[in-house]
């Protein structure tokens, strides 16, 4: 329902402005704080005006937390997660929408259920699996033959372990499914008449058509991958695989150390830049992919 009255208009504008300030507030604190000296950042009241120490603080943060390695790791992790999620969800939705198999609904509901089981809920079993991939097979062999074999493979301290458990995504699958369902059945049939098989149809027709969708998903999933904290914390003990979110913790001032929040804030600023950049570049498609279906 769309209403047009001056009061409602004014009210919505006030709400909008408040929301904007609320979102912008923390960001202003980061930008201002990151460019101040230790004395300035700890002054009461807080000064919201940026100063000239930004580069100094950023350099300090970069060195203290070894952000070079961490940024690279986070970038690799977020990229793999994004790519994996986009590819996997496109394929899953493809098989759910375009194939008639008896188990279709079963698989659809299995995917659906995972919406209720985010990583945080299943973190212990997932860790158990990642720490010892062959445990079920070992148990099976031991149970069937009585022989205890000692094959072992774990994903701790590896990019695979960092990304694989995060790749499966119900949200992405649904996004694709909704889009695929808007396509007329005749499109697939026309392709069949033209002699194209399912794989060919997927690459020649579906992928080009779902470009905006894909970019929207890329945006969401890159930010999601970049922001992971709990999972890397569990999987990674080797500092060579450390991610930015873990470095952020290292940037927090120690209990009795110097309260150099300016360095912490400068570090956060660096860390939030890549996802900000991705969103800025892709936001046009992001909105289009989620809102409209191109015909």
């Amino acid at each position, binding site marked *: 329902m769309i209403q047009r009255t001056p009061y409602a208009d004014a009210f919505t504008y006030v709400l909008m402005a408040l929301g904007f300030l609320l979102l912008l507030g923390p960001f202003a604190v980061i930008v201002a704080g990151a460019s101040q000296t230790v004395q300035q950042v700890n002054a009461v009241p807080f000064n919201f005006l940026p100063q000239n120490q930004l580069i100094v603080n950023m350099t300090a943060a970069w060195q203290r937390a070894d952000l070079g390695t961490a940024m690279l790791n986070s970038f690799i992790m977020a990229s793999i997660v994004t790519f994996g999620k986009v590819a996997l969800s496109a394929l899953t939705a493809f098989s759910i929408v375009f194939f008639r198999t008896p188990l279709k609904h079963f698989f659809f509901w299995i995917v659906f259920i995972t919406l209720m089981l985010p990583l945080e809920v299943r973190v212990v079993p997932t860790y158990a699996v990642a720490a010892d991939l062959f445990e079920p097979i070992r148990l099976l062999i031991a149970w069937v033959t009585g022989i205890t074999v000692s094959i072992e493979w774990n994903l701790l301290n590896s990019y695979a372990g960092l990304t694989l458990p995060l790749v499966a995504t119900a949200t992405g699958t649904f996004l694709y499914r909704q889009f695929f369902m808007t396509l007329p059945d005749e499109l697939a049939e*026309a392709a069949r*008449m*033209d002699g194209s098989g399912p794989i060919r149809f997927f690459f020649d027709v579906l992928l080009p058509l779902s470009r905006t969708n894909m970019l929207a998903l890329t945006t969401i999933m890159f930010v999601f991958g970049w922001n992971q904290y709990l999972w890397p914390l569990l999987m990674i003990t080797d500092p060579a695989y450390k991610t930015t979110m873990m470095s952020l913790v290292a940037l927090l001032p120690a209990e009795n150390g110097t309260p150099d929040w300016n360095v912490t804030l400068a570090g956060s600023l660096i860390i939030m830049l890549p996802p900000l950049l991705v969103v800025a570049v892709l936001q046009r498609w992001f909105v289009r992919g989620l809102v409209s279906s191109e015909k």
Partner: protein
Amino acid sequence: MADITVRAVRKSYGKTATLHGIDLAFASGEFVVILGPSGCGKSTLLRMIAGLEDITGGEIEINGRVVNKLEPRERGCAMVFQNYALYPHMTVADNIGYALKVAGVPKAERRARIAETAKIVGLGDYLQRKPAALSGGQRQRVAMARAIIREPGVFLFDEPLSNLDATLRVTMRAEIRKLHQRLSATSVFVTHDQVEAMTLADKLVVMNKGQVEQVGQPLDIYHRPASTFVAAFIGAPPMNLMDARIDASATVARHEHLAIPISSAMAAALAGRDVTLGIRPEECRVLPAGEGLPARVDFVEELGSGRIVHAAFGSRIFAAAIPLDIRVASGDLIGLALPPAQLHVFDRETGRRLDVTHSMGRHEPVRQAAEAV
């Protein structure tokens, strides 16, 4: 060029059967139109020929080869869909050439054939456009070009003109007919529009509720409908139908209080039977009040070339097509004349046609309408 034989073909979805044993044979180069109301199974039959639907029972043979188990691409059919089903992200040229690309035809040859095909359908200037930048008629042409370029033995059309406006539909109808003359590939055209069916068909198949009602040449079907369903479905406005009992003692059929004169042959052959009588609106003649059978004008439709009078006749409304020089207005009392030779007679129970020769004086036995298959 290919002939198609459909043998006892059935289709069911779970327990609901939609086609109950269809037997048809289409000769090579024939233009066949399958006509029927929505839900009669005509599209399903077409899609089974194309290979887009599984065949529950029976056999479909194309060019002497049973194709039940073959993929669509192996059947040598091309299909034009109702909503065109163009690939929205490809240019017109890519749309037309996609089948060739899939088949691995070299680029140069592909380009030449695309240009040639586009010329046939008059799309030469639009090759680099996307479908979204085309009008409905142009999209339909792309869809046809996409079918033509494969040089198929069989063209399948699934209500291809339904999405076009009335004027364009007439133009495209003529173009499809011309195209068929030029390519002379066997064509199967599904529609619910009887004008399309009458104008396009070499052979017309009328379907109802998953069964074939009648097969034949359009004019034969128009003049000798095999059942009340076909009689009412073909012709606009539809044939007037009424229940009647053939009088045992006089050459009339009794409908309520009315006595409708019939031929002596019909009277003799069907004396005492309950039948359904039918007459086409254009065969009814309107007479001044007092002559013929009494009727009261309900309303008049002006067609420009003539007018259609809807008149209360007994307890039902009869349509009569009359020339412009007869003027009537609603509420007028008129007389209706139903020429006995133009009366169609159907069995009341089964709805099937009862054939009576209308030659004067000779009594011929009743014969069930033979269905040419």
